Structures are given as C-alpha cells and as structure tokens.
C-alpha cells in the first residue's frame, strides 16, 4: 500500500483525495469531466448528476473523455447545466434514492417521473457510474503521481451519510465493487469531516494540536449541511485509559436521520421570493428566466450572508433570447429580506421542545418536499438531540462514558459543548453564529457553545476519509470509536390463534447491538429457526438508532411500533433431493465486516453449511 484514497460520493457533488503514506497530508485530485460538447477540463468537484443525451443531440465523440471515447451519458458540470434545461433527461440525487426503501433500487426509475421510454437508470446503476468516473479520474491522478495506475496500491475509503441504513450501505459498497474500486472501506461522512479537522490541525503544525482544542467530557456536534441533505452526528470526547499513546478517546455516540434539506432549498426559497417580488412589480417571468433567477439568487445569497456591509443586491434576469438590453428585468434583494428568508426561515430561534412534525416518506420528490413540510434546521436539530438523549438513557455504559454535563440541564436533549460545521452552507458566518446561538439558548441561559474551526468545507469529507485510511494503515493518529450506528433486529412471528381483524404483534430479537465494531461476529444462541428447504424464506428486519442499551438476544415487544422497519431479508436453501420440504434447524450468525458492512448468515446446526441472508430490495407493498 502506497496511498490512502478518500472518496466522497455526495448527493450533489463528489470529490476524491489522495494521501501519500510516506508522510504528507491528503490533497484533492482534479477530476476530468465534460464541460461542453468537445470541451473537457478539470475541476476538484464532480457534480453527481448524469444527463442522458438524445441520439444525435451532440456530434459523435464530442462527449468523449480520455477513458471513454463514446458515451451518450454525461456526468459532471455539463450534465448539470444541460439537465437544468431538459430536466426529463437528468438523473439527480441518486444517493437519496439509494436509501429509499419505498422503491426497488435496482429498477430503472431515474430520472424520476420522466417520460423517457428507455435508457432510464436505477439508483444503484447511477451511483455505480459516478464511482466509475471517479475511479478513472483517480487512475489518471495515480499515473500523474507515480506513472502507474494500480489501485492495488491504494486503500480506498468511501464515505456514506451517517443516516444510511444497512441496506444503503451495502448497496453503496456493492456499487463501488462493480465500479472497479474493489473492497472499499465505508466511513460515515460526519466522522470524515471530523478527521479532516484533525488532519488540518496536524498539517498546520500549529502550537494548538487538535487535542488541546477539546477536552475530556466535551460533546462535539458535527453539523453537515450540503446542497441537498443534512446530516448530524455527536462525538464524545473521553479521557483515555492510562498508558495509551493518546490522552483522549473519541466515541461517535449518535447519528441523525436522513434529512433532505440543504443549501439548494435556500436558493430556491430566495428565487421564489424574488419571483413574487417581480410579479408584484409587474413582471411575470417564465420557467427559463426562473433558472437564471436561481443562479442570481445563489450569488446574491452568498454575498449578502458573507458581507454585513451590503444593504441590498441588484438582481438582473435576462430572457433566453439574444436581446439582452431590451428584455432584461431587474429587481433588488434587500438584506432584511434575505436574512428573514434564510436565517430566520431555515435557522429560526425555536424552543428546544419544538420538533418537526412526524417523519414523512423522504425522497419521493425532490425540491419542495422537506421545504414544504419543515424547513427549519433548528427543529431537526432539536429532534436529533432529543433522540440522542433517549439513546443514551437506554444504555448505562454510554451514559457513563458521556459525563454528566451533557446529560444534565432542564432541556430533554444531550447538550453539545462544541460544534464542527461542514458543508457549503456554512461558509456564511451568520449561519454558523445563528446555530451556535440557538444551541446556546437550549443548553442553558448564558452558556456558550464553541465552534471548532474546520477546513475547506466542500472537500473536507474526502480529505478526512483519506486521512482515516492513512491512519488505519500506518497505525498513527486517532480513531473514532464508532461501530454500527444502529442496532438491528429480526422479527419473530408470535404463535397466536388467528383472530379476524386483529394483527398479532411482532416480537423482534436484537441480532446486532448498536456500536458493534468492525470485524466482530457472533452466534445467536437461544434462537433457532426452522427453515423449509427448496423455497425462499423471508424475515422482517428492523433497526433502531435510539436503543443503545439492547444487547444481543434482547427481545423487543411490539417491534413494528417501537422500531424502524428496514427492507426484509430473504434466504433460500437449496432443496435436499431425498426429502422435499425438509425443515432444517439453523441459527443466525451476524458479522460486522472489516470494511463496515453487515452480513447475516444462517448456519446449519448439525453441519458447517451456511447460507447468506440477502436484503430484499423490492419495495414493500
């Protein structure tokens, strides 16, 4: 192994970084991509969108890349621009679809709601293509560095949202394998952002090592808001046992839910507000002008939020036609309006008890869904911290690890003492300040929550992932103790007489406790299943992010109400020739693999035969 590679496969943008194991710090690579017909160039980010061109839309070979001489599908900057004008042919947010249990993730459903008759892609296939593009770019970068493109020299760490469930993680892992990246290691994105901060503080060689910025008992909230999604994680800092090389230990103790809300929603909100404003001034704008308006709104937002001296920004919206002078409409966006919409709209000063309304099905629509129901990040944050408290309460060991301060106070939340921001949204200082202010008001009157200064917010996840890989390989540096972010359960039907109109309650048994570290496996004794050979058997599969106290074998009553149901599991035993429909006694063996995926095996009691359980990816009707 010569290099550690971090890949951030984002919902809206992807990024790759390389870290040389012989010293040196992670650096992002340039990703060659199509910028227009016949035009290629390099950018550090690859837009995670794919445009399915119409036959003969562009000249033959004009969408060629060095490694791909002829392809009708474009990925990257040009795909995004072109797709904005022809949305029916644009595959976007594939990652959010990958963790949506309501669709078959191997079915060609993207672009969503498109009238295309053929050429549609599955969320899995789209992710695979992005990863393949990143692999090619990586190989180019390796050639530039050392003359050969051997991925065998690289440990590859691929980041996934902390909110991804096991199915989405497994699909991502599989997509990476099919994209030629091999057996990648999975890492949660907020953890990667945290590693990037550690790497950054080491790289700067400042007097203040990262371990002097936090102390035992601190609880760090990683607040990652990207273009389309928000992801929260809590990392606890604890004193290490005496005699270890590091004085501190880091534990990831809670992860949030998948929230489809990000910077793009803010740009849209501003653009809609400006559209109304222009219509009040007597100008109606069409769909194409609206696209320009979104761009203008984004630029205006960035300037207004970063420079307090600007009172208003003029906005000019051209038509699509060539006549620029006669038909350009203009209006202004005032500071007060932008602040009201963005800062007070998305980060309002809410009470800690104000939570978003019940979770709805995510991902079925793109923009507008979360925006329409609950745009306030503050409320999502309150819900996350409340659930984290609930999780800690369920497990005395976790409660002890955390220290008292985080769990005390009147508010029903875990109290973070520091925040690490990540994602493009937090370039704006005013938003970071608002989050700190809201958190402070929840923690206790007058208390402050400090900010930990992160590194480059668009690339931090990829950089952190490469740092993590290097730390794993060389044994230097610190590792966040994490393990599985959720606990997993398998459903058991209760033997009850059938009563019409009454659904018997489902009992579930814990098969993987929360926080199980990579590379562990165990046999589930005490629960034996009788499998009928020759036909597929299906199990209900549940998970929970708030039951840290459950140990292996713990039984949960009313599982369908207290746990989250994930995709079901199926297993098919080959028929035994002599006896059809034979019932075979098996036990369950869960394995958390070294690369961070979960495997479940059914083991025959009386021989060493075993069968792997597969996730059923068909949507549940």
């Amino acid at each position, binding site marked *: 192994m010569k290099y550690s590679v971090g890949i951030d496969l984002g919902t809206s943008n992807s990024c790759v970084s390389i870290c040389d194991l012989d010293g040196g710090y992670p650096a992002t690579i340039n990703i060659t991509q199509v*910028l*227009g017909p*016949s*035009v*290629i*160039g*390099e950018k550090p980010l690859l837009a995670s969108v794919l445009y399915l061109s119409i036959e003969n839309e562009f*000249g033959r*070979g*004009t969408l*060629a890349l060095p490694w791909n001489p002829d392809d009708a599908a474009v990925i990257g900057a040009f795909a995004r*621009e072109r797709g904005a*004008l022809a949305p029916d042919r644009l595959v976007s947010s594939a990652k959010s679809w990958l963790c949506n249990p309501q669709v078959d993730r191997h079915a060609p459903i993207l672009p969503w709601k498109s009238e295309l008759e053929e050429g549609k892609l599955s969320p899995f296939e789209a992710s695979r293509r992005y990863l393949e593009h990143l692999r090619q770019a990586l190989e180019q970068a390796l050639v530039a560095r050392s003359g050969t493109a051997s991925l065998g020299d690289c440990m590859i760490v691929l980041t996934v949202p902390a909110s991804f469930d096991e199915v989405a993680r497994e699909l991502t892992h599989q997509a990476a394998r099919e994209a030629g990246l091999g057996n990648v290691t999975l890492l949660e994105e907020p953890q990667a952002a945290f590693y990037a901060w550690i790497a950054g503080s080491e790289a700067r060689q400042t007097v203040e090592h990262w371990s002097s910025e936090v102390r035992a008992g601190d609880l760090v909230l990683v607040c990652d808001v990207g273009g389309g999604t928000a992801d929260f994680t809590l990392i606890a800092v604890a004193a290490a046992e005496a005699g270890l090389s590091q004085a501190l230990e880091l534990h990831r103790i809670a992860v949030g839910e998948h929230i489809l809300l990000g910077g793009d929603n803010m740009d849209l909100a501003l653009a809609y507000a400006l559209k109304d404003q222009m219509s009040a001034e007597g100008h109606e704008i069409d769909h*194409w002008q609206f696209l*320009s308006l979104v761009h*203008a709104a984004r*630029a205006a937002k960035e300037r207004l939020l970063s420079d307090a001296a600007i009172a208003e920004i*003029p*906005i*000019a*919206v*051209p038509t*699509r036609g*060539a*006549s*620029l*002078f*006669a038909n*350009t*409409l*203009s209006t202004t966006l005032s500071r007060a309006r932008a602040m009201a919409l963005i800062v007070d709209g998305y980060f309002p000063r809410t009470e800690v008890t104000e939570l978003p309304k019940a979770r709805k099905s995510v991902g079925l629509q793109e923009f507008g869904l979360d925006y329409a129901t609950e745009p306030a990040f503050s409320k999502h944050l309150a819900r996350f911290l409340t659930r984290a408290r609930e999780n800690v309460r369920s497990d005395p060991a976790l409660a002890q690890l955390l220290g008292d301060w985080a769990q005390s106070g009147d508010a029903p939340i875990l109290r973070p003492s520091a925040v690490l921001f990540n994602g493009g949204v937090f370039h704006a200082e005013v938003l970071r300040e608002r989050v700190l202010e809201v958190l402070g008001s929840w923690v206790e009157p007058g208390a402050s929550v400090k900010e930990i200064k992160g590194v480059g917010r668009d690339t931090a996840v990829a950089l952190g992932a490469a740092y993590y890989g290097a730390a794993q390989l060389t044994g230097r540096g610190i590792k966040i103790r994490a393990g599985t972010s959720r606990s997993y359960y398998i459903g058991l039907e209760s033997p009850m007489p059938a009563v019409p109109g009454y659904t018997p309650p489902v009992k579930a048994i814990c098969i993987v406790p929360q926080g199980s570290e990579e590379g562990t496996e165990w046999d589930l004794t005490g629960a034996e299943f009788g499998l009928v050979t020759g036909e597929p058997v299906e199990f209900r599969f549940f998970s929970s992010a708030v039951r840290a106290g459950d140990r292996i074998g713990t039984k949960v009553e009313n599982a369908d109400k207290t746990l989250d149901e994930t995709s079901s599991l199926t297993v098919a035993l080959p028929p035994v020739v002599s006896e059809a429909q034979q019932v075979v006694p098996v036990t369950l063996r869960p394995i958390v693999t070294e690369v961070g995926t979960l495997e479940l095996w059914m083991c025959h009691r009386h021989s060493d035969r075993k069968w792997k359980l597969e996730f059923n990816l068909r949507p549940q009707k």
Partner: protein
Amino acid sequence: MHTGYMRLAISAIIAVALTAGRLLMPESLIDDYAGYVAMTLAGLGAYMVVEGILMLRRTAVQRPGESKWSATRILLGAFLILLIAGVGILPLPPEIGSVAESYRWIALAVLSVYVLCEALMARHRFVEAPGADTNQSAGQAPRAAASQTVKPIKRGLVLSVLMLFLIVSYSKAMTPDFLPAGLEAYRDVVLAAVALLILIDALVAVRKQRGEYAGSSETTQPIKAPRPPSIQEGAGYGEVLAFLSLLQEKGRFIDFVMEDVTTFNDTQVAAASRVVHQGCAAVIREYFEIAPVHGGKEGEKLTIDKGADPDHYRLVGKVTGAPPFHGVVLHRGWKTAKLALPRYATPVDPSAPNIITPVEVEVR
C-alpha cells in the same frame, strides 16, 4: 516539406542516375553495374515506403478507404527493398550480359519518368492550386483545379500499363538463352512488383481526386470526420472558441457586444451589464487567478530599476536615457497565476463557420 517536392527531388535523382550514370560511369565501375542498378532500385523501394507512409498519415483520418492502398504500397516497397538487398549483397552471376542490363535499364527509366510525372502532378495539386498554399490541406482546394490535374493522373495510368507490357514482352523476347531460368524469374518478379506498385499509386491518385474534386460523386466514400489540422494550423482555436462560448453561456457576452447599445437607456444597459458582469466574472475566476501586477495604488510614484522585467512594465510619456526611470503608475496592470483553459477535443476548421452557441429550441 511538401510531399510533392520530395517526390520530385527523389525521382529526378533516380532519372539522372539511370540515364547519365551509364555514360558517365567510370571504367572501374562498369563491372559493378548490376550492383549500381540494384542500389537505385533499393532507393526507389525506400522512396515508395516513405511515400506510402506519408500518404497513409494524410489519408488515415480523412479517407479510411484509401489507407489500404497506401498500406499496400508500403508493403510492396518493403518487398522491393528486400529483393534488391539480396542482389546487392549477393554478387550477380557473371553470365548476365549487356542485353539483360539494357532491358532493366529501360524499365527503370520508364519507371522514373512515371514518378517524375506523378511528382509534377502532386506538386501542382499541393502548391499551385489556388488557396491551397497556406493552411489548407488538399481537401479544401477549389474544384477549378480539378480539370487541370486529372490529365497527369491519367497519363500516369497509361504509362504504368505500358511499362508493365514492356517488361513482360522484353523479358519474353530478349532473355538470353544462357541465363539461368531462376535468375530471370527473380528479376521479373522485382520489376513486376514495381510496376504493380505504380499501378496502385495511380489508382490511389485517381480515387483521391474523385473524392476531393468531384465531391458529390456517389461512388466515392463520403468524407465523415472533419479534417484534423496540422500542428501549426489552428492550434488553440478550439480553446478560444470554447472560452468564447463559455462567456456567452454564463455571461451572455456575445449577446452583449453584438447588440447596438445606442437605442437603449442607461437603466436598461445597467441591468444587462449586471448579467454580463456576474456571469463573465464567474468564468474568469474559474479559469484564471487574476491579481494586479503592481501591488500599490494607481497614481503613486514608482521607480523602475535596471533589472526590472520588461514584460511587467510599459513605459509611456517622456522615456529618455537609461534606467532607473521615475514615474507615476497610470494603470496597475493585471497578471494571472493560473491558466487552466478547458481543452477542446475535436479539431477546429478556422475557415468554416464555427458555432459559438447553438440555436435554442424549446420542444413542447
């Protein structure tokens, strides 16, 4: 160097060597005359290879159909060299008489005349065709040249057929009885190969001419891919074109400069210029890293020392004497720390209309 000139030079050397060589040859060399002819033939073979490769390179992209002819030519040339090399190394049997020599001599003379003719034709096509002398490859030559160049090609065809006939008839009629049959056959193979080569050459020329000048002729292969410009021709045009279309797509730059501003009031111009400023500034920031050359303010005093980089400063006003110069900064200059223009992948033909931004049609 034009292939036409190269052909002309080589064929002239061969022709002179063959005709004058016999007369001017020193006594001491007369004995070795067979070796001399063999060397000439080897030179001819080498020429054919070179010519074939040149042709292949020129035609590979434009007319894939012709490449196989050129490839055949290379093979034949190589074959010729091999055969002749065999003769050069092996001493010729003393039995070869003057009759056989002269026969070979005639054949070679005819051969070189053909090459001369062919070269003249090529020169005509490449150099004298109007408009084809600067950056145009043969494909852009006007059709007016067509009628003038068809003749030499036909002449080449006739000549080579005639030569083939000559060789065959000579070898039958004039072969001395004392020559071993094997050697005879060997020589015929060599000369027949040469003749075949020339035939192919002429065929290529005719095909090519039809393709280029007849244009619409259905029998020829249609020209699909655009012609690639040579290294000097059109270098950087694609990048400039791509950059221009970026400025238009992101900043409406072409719309802005192509419209007559005089009819619009300042408010309208201001609104439009905001669009252009925002878009173009984003493009410039993405591909360049622009900063002032002079870090200070405009209007302040500045001394330019002797060692100052002349690229950095433009001296205006009363510039006399030698440095150091004392003056006032009128403009602080700009420099870029980065030049990362997007690359343009397909060749651009600067003489044809090139699209900056396409017609946009909304399909309803």
